């Protein structure tokens, strides 16, 4: 990325952040709920983007980790513990379970791994539904409280939206640091060529486990915000459908692109709302739009931008080579 491109991205980011802070002030209750949902789903999708997009490990269990985080937060906050502690527990629990789920990835890959994680997703759902003593079973847990921060109640939709947005901002910064660090390069090497990565000293086992653990922990974090956002949780939202939806967010946005989950979650959460004018046909429109997008650009929305930038850079490089060659020929003639 050139300096000008970096400045452009920075300026664009500042404008988007300002819009995310200011614009929702005028939104109603439902609009704020949808926007908060976008922040929460973006966090979960960022986690899956690390596991799948950066490290190349297929997972159909991200929805289960959102569930684990949501139940951890709901149970703890309902018992009077602060949300901050619940978030720490959700992160730690999802990290450990994600680490353990990573072990099969050391032996199986691709669709075989997808099936292992799918089995875990089903198992988690059964625990949420059947372990009534802990999760409330099909009746769920209601009245999940929203926190009071520095003396300010976040019970109303706008303050809690800012809690979710702060969570997304923290995750974004941490994730930016992670992918720019040597770990980011190691994850990419793991995805592109594990054999070569190992020959360069990359401990592919440990990085695979870390990719699962960190990705899952972010799913847990998203869940810990989801529970106080909806203030009621039951097992229904945490089925395989959520994992597939998160997978779609990552792929539609652009798997392996830093901003892919932001765009993907926007399409998956906000687009169906914008299509509501089509009444009962809105899901059909939505499905067709998603299919057309993926046919046109299998690497997602950001893949289109990436292709454009690459071809522009390649054209510029080839023009430079041509002019250098012409300069050499002129020298030779003289």
């Amino acid at each position, binding site marked *: 990325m050139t300096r000008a491109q970096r400045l452009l991205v920075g300026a664009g980011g500042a404008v988007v952040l300002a819009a995310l802070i200011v614009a929702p002030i005028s939104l109603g209750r439902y609009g704020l709920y949808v926007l908060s949902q976008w922040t929460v789903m973006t966090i979960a999708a960022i986690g899956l983007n690390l596991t799948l997009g950066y490290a190349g490990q297929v997972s159909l269990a991200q929805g289960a980790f959102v569930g684990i985080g949501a139940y951890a937060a709901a149970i703890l906050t309902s018992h009077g513990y602060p949300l901050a502690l619940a978030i720490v527990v959700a992160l730690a629990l999802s990290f450990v379970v994600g680490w353990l789920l990573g072990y099969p990835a050391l032996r199986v890959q691709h669709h075989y791994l997808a099936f292992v994680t799918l089995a875990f997703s089903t198992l988690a759902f059964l625990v949420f539904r059947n372990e009534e003593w802990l999760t409330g079973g099909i009746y769920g847990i209601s009245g999940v409280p929203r926190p009071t921060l520095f003396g300010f109640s976040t019970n109303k939709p706008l303050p809690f939206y800012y809690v979710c947005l702060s969570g997304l901002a923290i995750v974004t910064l941490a994730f930016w640091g992670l992918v720019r660090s*040597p770990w980011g390069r190691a994850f990419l090497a793991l995805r592109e060529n594990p054999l070569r990565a190992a020959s360069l000293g990359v401990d592919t086992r440990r990085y695979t486990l870390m990719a699962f653990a960190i990705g899952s922990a972010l799913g847990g974090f998203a869940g810990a915000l989801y529970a106080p956002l909806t203030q009621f949780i039951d097992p229904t939202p945490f089925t395989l459908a959520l994992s597939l939806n998160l997978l779609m967010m990552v792929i539609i946005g652009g798997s392996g692109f830093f901003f892919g989950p932001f765009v993907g979650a926007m399409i998956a959460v906000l687009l169906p709302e914008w299509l509501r004018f089509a009444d009962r046909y809105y899901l059909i429109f939505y499905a067709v739009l998603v299919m057309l997008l993926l046919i046109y650009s299998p690497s997602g929305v950001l893949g289109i931008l990436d292709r454009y930038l690459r071809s522009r850079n390649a054209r510029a490089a080839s023009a430079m080579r041509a002019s250098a060659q012409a300069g050499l020929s002129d020298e030779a003639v003289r």
Partner: protein
Amino acid sequence: MTHVLEVTNLRKRFGGIAAVDGVSFHVDEGEILGIIGPNGCGKSTTFNCILGQLAPSDGEVLLDGRVITGMRPSELNRLGVSRTFQLLQVFPQLTVRENLILAGQEHRGTMLTRLFGAPDAGLGPEAERMIAVFRLDHLTHTPASELSYGQQKLLDAAMAFMAGPRLALLDEPTAGVNPTMLSDFKERLRTINREQGATFVVIEHNMEFVMSLCTRLVVMAEGKVLAEGGPAAIRANPAVVEAYLGH
């Protein structure tokens, strides 16, 4: 005297076929050893057994007198053994500089310090030096995917030396490299050998290149060592001429 690398009676069977059949040789400090032989004679399989990419059926591999048989490739790399592959293995999305930093970063600090430390793991100056040695200066920030095949080969070789290896195993480093770049490439390898004191084992089909670069040669045929010696002795060996070099 302890050899840098000692391979004893190495065997690798694939079903009923013995790809490597009782191979023994050693490499001394600072030496550039060449392994030559016809296609399918077991050279690359020998490399893969030494480097933990294949589990040998039998035999022992020692690095500085320490048994390394069956160790994982990443562990071996951290012990100072690096390699290149027969086919190009650079990371196309990363720039030349990033490829080199990746090649050295796992030798710096712990996982935790790599996470919270500098993005380039403090390898910036070393990467610049390696870029200069392999004369890739004008391509420092170019993604590897935009390099020519020969430039990618140079980058691939440079990556093998980023961590200052004790032993580097190069599998057909000149395959596909423009002939005009070959002598330059040889000089780069000699510079690394002289300045870093690295010991090399090179598999190569380019006889002119290997005869002028290596101090000693091992000739393989049908999974076995056919002959061993200096370039002149190998050229004069009738069995080698018959099996590989030709008249």
